[in-house]
């Protein structure tokens, strides 16, 4: 057991003084560590970080994103990934090494306006993000209801090990695909189920930082409020997106504990 101290911070707030390592959204100023964004500051054994509560999506390598094909050149597609950088999907990634712009018709695979699921394979401050669709479950999204939420709410929507999204999927008989960039696609056979899932997702987005959210979502979805069994590995995109040990899990812990407090 080690103690992790958490507190709410805004830019310029001193989090802690001493020899800690600044991790995420934290800068050193003299002997103190200072927050640079609004969020929840965590002081742990390995350092100090701030989990942001607002902001646009900034790509990271290995993120799973949902994007829209907005253009293509003879060598690559341009993809809007809801960020300040537009991403590129090289044609070689789809057609293989022997791709020839003269022989292969790129619009056969992805036309302008198509939605795709992709993974970011390269991104740094000097170049735009590069995507790949060469993995299980990546590629074109044929149908579904499209939603755009803030990228900072994605971890909350997924929930701890996918618990929140699993609740929504099970109660509404839908399948929810979540990109780390805040784009969500809901598919289901019944339009009522899709509508209900959309309402639930909107509620999660609006009330992400409040306590007792899971209970209220269950209320909205008419799910009996019992302790859920430990979620099994769904082997899906969502499960991949919520790997334990990442920031997502930590923010969920904070919120789960908030919920526990609320129950008392």
């Amino acid at each position, binding site marked *: 057991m080690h103690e992790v101290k958490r507190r709410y911070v805004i830019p*310029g707030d*001193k989090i802690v003084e001493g020899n800690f390592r600044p991790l995420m959204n934290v800068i050193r100023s003299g002997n103190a560590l200072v927050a640079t964004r609004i969020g929840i500051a965590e002081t742990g054994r390995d350092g100090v970080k701030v989990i942001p509560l607002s*902001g646009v999506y900034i790509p990271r390598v290995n993120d799973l994103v949902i994007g829209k094909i907005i253009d293509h050149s003879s060598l690559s597609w341009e993809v809007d990934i809801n960020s300040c*950088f537009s991403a590129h999907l090289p044609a070689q990634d789809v057609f293989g090494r022997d791709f020839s712009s003269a022989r292969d018709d790129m619009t056969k695979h992805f036309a302008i306006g198509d939605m795709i699921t992709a993974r970011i394979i390269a991104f740094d401050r000097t170049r735009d993000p590069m995507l790949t669709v060469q993995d299980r479950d990546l590629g074109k999204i044929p149908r579904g209801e499209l939603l755009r939420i803030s990228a900072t709410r994605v971890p909350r929507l997924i929930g701890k090990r996918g618990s929140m999204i699993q609740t929504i999927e099970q109660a509404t008989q839908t399948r929810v695909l979540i990109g780390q960039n805040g784009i969500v696609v809901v598919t289901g056979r019944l339009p009522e189920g899709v509508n209900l899932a959309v309402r639930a997702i909107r509620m999660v987005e609006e009330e992400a930082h409040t306590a007792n959210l899971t209970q209220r979502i269950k209320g909205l979805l008419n799910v009996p409020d019992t302790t859920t069994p430990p979620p099994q590995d769904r082997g899906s995109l969502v499960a991949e997106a919520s790997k334990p040990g990442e920031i997502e899990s930590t923010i969920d812990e904070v919120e789960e504990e908030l919920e526990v407090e609320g129950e008392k």
Partner: protein
Amino acid sequence: MTQTRNLIDENGKRTDGRGVDGLRPVKITVGSVKNADGSAFIEFGKNKILVAVYGPREVHPKHMALPDRCVLRCRYHMSPFSTDTRKNPAPSRREVEISKVMREALEPALMLQDYPRAAIDVFVEVLQSDGGSRCAGITAASVALADAGISMHDLVASCAAGKVDDKIVLDINDQEDKEGQADMPVAYMPRLEQVTLLQLDGRLEPEQFNECLEKAIDGSKMVYEIQKQALMQKYFGNETELKEEVP
């Protein structure tokens, strides 16, 4: 700048009933523009200013983009109905200048190198003006930037001071600005103790200058507390701290 009547009465009260160190009532609401990435509405005395921040987003036209950092673009605009007589909505010389000094006042607080090749747009719309609107605009813009989740070293708080009836007073209002002897808008980053904007309209003796600057900085610190409260209220309600054991 000719003074026609007393702006401070025999009891030391100013035209709106404040003392020489009094700040006008300040109220900041965060997140008032739904479609913006960050926004704030400030009421600074009779000033009513709406600020919307968009970005970081793609730069258009693309040649404006900088390879190593983000471009900050600022637009200060007064609505035609914000003044006593209708103001022409076209950007005036004054508005172009204020847009520039605002950008320069906010830039030192932002970590623009975190967002290379992108742009952040700040739109400051004055809906009702009452003197000191650039200070109120900078104050609200800095809150809106924090609301947009942009990395910052510190918030920028801003307040003016000036000379009225040969006395140095805090937070000049419209009448004191027009009829008083000097007006000094100051923007300040309290944690870093750095001044990011310092303008002066009027004449001050060297000692008066120092007194005026100190007073404006003290005013900025008061505004800073209001900024912090507004952000805390929006994001965390009334809670301030959480602490627990994690295995």
